[in-house]
C-alpha cells in the first residue's frame, strides 16, 4: 500500500508581472509520505512560498497537478480537502479584533465543526503551549513568541492531518525560535502529523526533518531530496553528531553551487 499523501507533479507557476510573465517555479515533482517531516530549504526568491501557497489553496498553479490522498487538483486546491490541512504563516496572522479563543475557533466555524469536543480541543491546545491564561486576551496583548504559538495551534485546532508551515519562526529572535522548534518537534512526535516546513536556515531543517528538499533559483525548482537519518528524539547535542555536520555540508554545498558566483551570503 502506498502511503503518499501529498504529491506535486510537473507543477509550474507563472506570475503575470509588469515586465511580463515570471516563471516562479517549474517542473516541481515530489511526494510526501504520511507522518513525514519535510523541510523545504533554498535561497530567498526560489519559490518556497509559491509552492506552499499552492498546496495550501491560496494560489492556483499554472500547470501540473497537486494530489492529496487520492484526490487530484489541476487548477488549485479547494473544497473540503482544506479541512485536512493546517497552514502556519510567517507572521502570526492572527485577527486583532478577535480574542485568542475566537481566533482559535475561526477554523472550526469555517469548517462547521461545533460541539463540546472541539471547545475542549481549544483548551487542550492552549494548555499544551502554556497560554491558557490568555484565552480571553486580544492578540496585541501577547508577545511575538506567544502570538506565533497561537498561530501554530490555530493550524492544529481542526485536527488536520497535514501541517504546512511557511517560515513560521523566521521573524522571532533565535532563542524563542529554538524553543519553538523543540516544541514543534514534540508536537509532531505526539500527534504524528505530516509536516511541510519552509526555512532558509539549513541547521533548522536538519534538526527538525526526516527529509530535506533543496531548492535552487532561476527557475525555482527542487534539485535534491535528502533523507536525514539521525536518531530521535533530537536535542541540541545533535549538532555534534558527525552525520549532522555531513548533512549540513552537503546541503549548504548544493545551495551555493546552484546560487552562482555573484550571490551574497544571507543569514
Amino acid at each position, binding site marked *: 500500500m502506498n502511503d503518499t499523501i501529498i504529491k506535486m507533479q510537473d507543477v509550474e507557476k507563472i506570475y503575470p508581472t509588469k515586465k511580463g510573465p515570471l516563471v516562479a517555479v517549474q517542473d516541481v515533482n515530489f511526494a510526501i509520505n504520511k507522518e513525514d517531516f519535510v523541510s523545504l530549504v533554498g535561497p530567498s526568491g526560489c519559490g518556497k512560498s509559491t509552492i506552499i501557497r499552492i498546496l495550501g489553496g491560496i494560489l492556483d498553479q499554472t500547470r501540473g497537478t497537486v494530489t492529496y490522498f487520492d484526490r487530484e487538483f489541476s487548477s488549485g486546491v479547494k473544497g473540503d480537502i*482544506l479541512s485536512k490541512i493546517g*497552514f502556519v*504563516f510567517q507572521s502570526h496572522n492572527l*485577527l*486583532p*479584533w478577535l480574542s485568542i479563543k475566537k481566533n482559535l475557533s475561526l477554523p472550526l466555524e*469555517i*469548517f462547521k465543526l461545533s460541539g463540546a469536543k472541539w471547545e475542549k480541543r481549544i483548551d487542550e491546545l492552549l494548555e499544551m503551549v502554556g497560554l491558557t491564561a490568555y484565552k480571553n486576551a*486580544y492578540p*496585541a496583548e501577547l508577545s511575538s513568541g506567544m502570538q506565533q504559538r497561537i498561530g501554530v495551534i490555530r493550524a492544529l485546532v481542526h485536527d488536520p492531518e497535514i501541517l504546512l508551515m511557511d517560515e513560521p519562526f523566521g521573524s522571532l529572535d533565535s532563542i524563542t525560535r529554538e524553543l519553538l522548534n523543540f516544541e514543534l518537534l514534540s508536537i509532531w512526535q505526539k500527534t504524528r502529523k505530516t509536516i511541510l516546513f519552509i526555512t532558509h536556515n539549513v541547521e533548522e531543517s536538519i534538526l527538525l526533518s526526516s527529509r530535506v528538499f533543496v531548492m535552487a533559483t532561476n527557475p525555482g525548482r527542487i534539485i535534491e531530496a535528502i533523507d536525514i537519518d539521525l536518531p530521535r528524539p533530537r536535542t541540541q547535542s545533535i549538532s555534534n553528531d558527525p552525520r549532522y555536520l555531513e548533512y549540513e555540508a552537503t546541503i549548504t554545498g548544493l545551495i551555493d553551487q546552484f546560487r552562482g558566483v555573484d550571490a551574497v551570503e544571507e543569514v
Partner: protein
Amino acid sequence: MKKKDFSRLNFLAPVLVFIVIFISWETIVNVFHIPRQVLPSPVNIFKSLFDNFIPLLSSHFLITLRTILTGFVIAVPTGILLGAVLSQYKILEKAISPYVIILVTTPLIVLVPLFMLWLGFGTNVRILAVIAQAIPVIMLNSITGFNSVEKTKLELMESLGATKWQTFVKVTFPNALSHVFTGITLGGVFSTISVISAEIVGGKTGLGNRIIYFSGFIETELAFACILLVILIGVTLATSIGVVRDTVIKWKN
C-alpha cells in the same frame, strides 16, 4: 492608575481652555466697553440662553436636532453599504468615485437653493442636504477601510476555504471599522454644518434661521445663544460617536 490619571487630564485640559477663553472674553468686553450689540459678554450670552430657551429657542432647537438626526440615521447605513458594495466591485468604484468627489467638494450652499426651487422650504429639503453631504464622506472613508485589508489576512481565509461572505464578515468588515468610524464622525460634523447652512438659506425655522433672524434685529446675544446650541449639538453628536466607537473597537492593532 496611570491610565485613569491620563483620562482625567484629557477631560481637564479642554475645560481649562474653556475657562481661560471665557474669562479673557469677559474681561476684554468689560475693560474695553465693547457694546453688547457688537460682541456680547459670555455671561450675558449664557443668561440670555437660559432666559429665552423655553419661550424662543427650544422649538427651533428641536427642529434642527430632529433634522440632523434623521439625515444622519439615513446617511450612516447608506454610506457604509454603498462603500461596502463599491469596494467589492472595483469597476463600480472607478466609475462613481470622481462624481462622489465632485459632490464632496461642491459647497452645499450652492446646491441648497436649487433643492429648494424643486422641493420647497420644508424640512425634507434639509434632510436631503444632510444626506447629500454626509453619505459621500461616510462612503469614501468606508471604501478606504474595506480596501485596506492586509493580504495575508485574506490568504488566511483562502487557506480555510472561506466563502466571499465569510471573508467579508470575519476580516474585511472588522478591519474597516476604524475607517468607517472616521467617516461617521465626519458625517456627523457635515450633517450639522449642512442643516445650519440649509436653514440659513431658506425657511422660517431652525437654529440657522434664528441666527440670521436675531442678527437682523441686532439681538446679538440671542444669535450667540443659538450658535451655542448648534455647538452643543455638534459636540454631543461627535462625543456620542466616540463612545460608540470605543465600545465597538476594543482591540488594538
